[in-house]
């Protein structure tokens, strides 16, 4: 039982990390109806920017600030040079543009900041919390807990921002109908620049946490792939959905990794491993069949 709990908790905590990446997708999808394929690349870019600046001798806080600046500039540039030309084009055109953007970043970022894998130290150590280890005999990582706390703060802020502020409402309005938003005087350019800026910030946080845990390397771009089942389960348009989806994926993949092989072995014989790798996608597929808009996603409203 203790072991089960330990697996569950560490799964939930790592799920929060997935949520962070998923959150970036949700932001841009909510505000522009675009599935931003480049989010994974942005995570990579942000992490690289932090490491790159630190290598040049900047202290952590300055590197983070500089990276944030870079991500914001990047967001504004994306709006100006890519999205602005594509107003009122079908979503698939915008989606293709973000694929292009992803390759662009994946090529450019290593050119500027170097491509070899590096460690990122953000001052939080990845070791068990002693009180819990001594008291209950469970291994819960400090790092995971801190990451979860950071994500929780970020998500709460964003959810409130979307729901109750003027800009947040405008963002949702733009997501619903570009043209109508334009017609009542909402400047799409500003809104998109803001969204990409915020998505850049989220990518920065995700990039730093993932980078600190796994090292800053090209594989960071693949974290985006793990965000996909998270989005499908939580819903593409929901900030809380990204969190809940992340928790479900994180917990279920760890539990599946531990408990499924034994079951499958007794049923089919043979050896089973690496379930963690594919289990989330199977889960997402199941969800698509039952509830395609996800747990918290906006239902498509059709007038009949």
């Amino acid at each position: 039982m203790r072991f089960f709990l330990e697996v569950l908790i560490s799964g939930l905590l790592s799920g929060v990390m997935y949520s962070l990446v998923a959150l970036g997708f949700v932001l841009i999808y909510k505000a522009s109806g675009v599935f931003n394929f480049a989010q994974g690349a942005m995570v990579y870019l942000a992490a690289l920017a932090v490491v790159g600046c630190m290598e040049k001798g900047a202290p952590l806080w300055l590197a983070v600030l500089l990276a944030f600046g870079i991500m914001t500039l990047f967001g504004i540039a994306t709006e100006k040079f890519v999205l602005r030309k594509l107003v009122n084009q079908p979503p698939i055109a915008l989606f293709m543009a973000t694929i292009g953007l992803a390759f662009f970043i994946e090529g450019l970022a290593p050119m500027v900041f170097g491509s070899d894998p590096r460690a990122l130290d953000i001052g939080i150590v990845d070791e068990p919390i002693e009180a819990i280890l001594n008291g209950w005999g469970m291994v819960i990582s400090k790092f995971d807990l801190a990451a979860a706390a950071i994500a929780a703060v970020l998500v709460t802020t964003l959810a409130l921002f979307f729901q109750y502020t003027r800009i947040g409402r405008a963002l949702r309005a733009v997501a619903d109908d570009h043209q109508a938003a334009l017609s009542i005087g909402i400047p799409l350019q500003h809104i998109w620049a803001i969204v990409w800026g915020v998505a850049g910030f989220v990518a920065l946080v995700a990039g730093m946490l993932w980078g600190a845990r796994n090292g800053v390397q090209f594989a960071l771009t693949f974290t985006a792939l793990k965000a996909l089942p998270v989005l499908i389960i939580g819903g593409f348009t929901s900030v809380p959905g990204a969190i809940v989806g992340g928790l479900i994926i994180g917990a279920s993949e760890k539990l599946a990794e531990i408990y499924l092989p034994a079951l499958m072995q007794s049923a089919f014989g043979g050896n089973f491993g690496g379930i963690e790798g594919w289990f989330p996608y199977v889960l997402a597929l199941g969800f698509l069949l039952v509830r395609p808009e996800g747990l918290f996603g906006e239902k498509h409203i059709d007038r009949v």
Partner: protein
Amino acid sequence: MTAATATTEAAPTAERYLTINNIEVIYDHVILVLKGVSLDVPKGKIVALLGANGAGKTTTLKAISNLLRAERGDVTKGSVEFKGNRVDQLSPNELVKRGVIQVMEGRHCFAHLTLEENLLTGAYTRSISRAGLKEALEKVYHYFPRLKTRRGTQAGYTSGGEQQMCAIGRALMAKPEMILLDEPSMGLAPQIVEEIFGIVKDLNQKENVSFLLAEQNTLMALRYADFGYILENGRVVMEGDAENLRTNEDVKEFYLGLSSSGRKSFKDVKHYRRRKRWLS
């Protein structure tokens, strides 16, 4: 070029308010949609822009509100002036700030926002306090009580009439002086249309909002408007006081389906219309 475009007879008012001078609009660099349209909206009046499908009503409105560019349309000639200033190069955002706002054809409410949130987005361009916002909301609810009872419903789940009211109310939140209202009767029951036109007239008289109203429902529009323009194939073919247009034989025949001289053969009608356009 044509007789219709050359005359820019001002409507019966001294002050120039919204003036469109001989504009030409081309979509995608090839499709000529407006071939020189000129019209005037005097302050505090309701002006109807009439005509059949594809005559250029919506394009005219979008040319004024500068929503054309997002659709690959371009105003290639002519000018749009509001209160004596050129406004054709302004972004929709700046134009809304100056008091000209468009209510688009087909309502375009934000489906996933509640009715109240829809209204609130309308105040985006205004920097007003929470109290001011509340006051503006109440004003809209005063004109559209039905919106108040359904304020918490997502707009996508409301009826067509409620959506039209929501769209007009949302525009009102920007505190406009001039509303470009495109086809408010589209797809609505006659009773609702009547209700909406009544509210438009109310807003016009009590809030002193001027309207440029594009409509296919000619009879209804002429009942509520002060002045009317009839567009055909991207040109103004006729203009006049609403009263005069309503009693005009040609308007009766072509747009109201009433004729004094019995039925004409389709061939005659077409010929007559073509000739009429050049002469007017």
